[in-house]
């Protein structure tokens, strides 16, 4: 390697001082800021905060990832609760429907012209024993009276 090549290489090589110098030169560039304006805004915000207590209480769920998770969890719990409640209502409806469909006795007693068991049971026991089974045309209703 010739002397000139060595000199060239030395010129191209960066050392710590060069880096420091380059960064220091760049540090001279500073933002043009109106600090009075910034201070005015700070003062305004602090005074506004003193005046309105409720302005302090601001929930920003997007402020932090943990809050995102919390918000998602709350939504999930609410949704599960609503769907569970809806499901239990549906099940209760279905159960009452099934009960009314699968209970023929209840349907029969609702038929017009048939003596209701409840009415007979509410009568005094002496009169209940006098009731003749043959008076009733409907055999299912007769079974009911015997029970």
């Amino acid at each position, binding site marked *: 390697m010739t002397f000139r090549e060595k000199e060239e290489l030395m*010129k*191209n*090589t*960066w*050392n*710590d001082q*060069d*880096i*420091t*110098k*380059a*960064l*220091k*030169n*760049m*540090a*001279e*560039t*500073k*933002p*043009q*800021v109106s*600090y009075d304006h*910034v*201070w005015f*805004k*700070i*003062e305004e*915000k*602090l005074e506004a905060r003193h005046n309105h207590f409720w302005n302090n209480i601001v929930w920003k769920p*997007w*402020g932090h*990832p943990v809050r995102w998770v919390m918000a998602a969890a709350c939504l999930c719990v609410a949704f599960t609760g609503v769907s569970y409640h809806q499901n239990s209502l549906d099940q209760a409806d279905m159960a009452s429907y099934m009960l009314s469909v699968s209970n023929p006795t209840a349907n029969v007693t609702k038929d017009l012209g048939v003596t209701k068991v409840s009415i007979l049971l509410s009568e005094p026991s002496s009169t209940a024993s006098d009731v003749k089974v043959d008076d009733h045309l409907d055999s299912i209703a007769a079974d009911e009276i015997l029970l």
Partner: protein
Amino acid sequence: MTETEAIDKCRQGDMAGLQVLFDLHRSKVMNLSWRMLGSQQEAEDALQEIFIKVFDRIKNYRGDSAFSTWVYRMTTNHCLDILRRRKILSFMGFENVPEVQDKKDSEKAVNLGFSPVIAKTLEKLPEKQKLCLLMREMDDLSYEDIALALQLSLGTVKSNIHRAKAFLKESLEKEGLTPDDV
């Protein structure tokens, strides 16, 4: 009013104390925020929020470190929070990400007073290494102050600066840039 008196006044809720502290530290806080966030508007907003935080949390300042170091720590934490939020927002596809994200590296670098090549190389550095280097070389902070501000050990700060410089040297040489060019 001295800094200590201003701190005491600020602790009592007096805004005159905060104004003195603001006048003393505003330019350093602004420069650091500006270099970290890459946008003057965002840096101005950060400056406001940081001094409001200073006013709110000054009761937690025990005087173990210099007040400037405490303010620096608050500044770095605040700016790192903003950068983290910005990353999350851009990851989630929100459109409200500051426009600086869309700017080309070279344009951003010129705004910050960096040479585009150095800016590009700095962008490749891990956040903590970049911060250590900028705080040391551009803001003239001592190793101890950087360690306190970034909550790192002294050894970590030194090794971060050393690695950052080595990486910068290597990259600049690869780019064929000489010290005279910058």
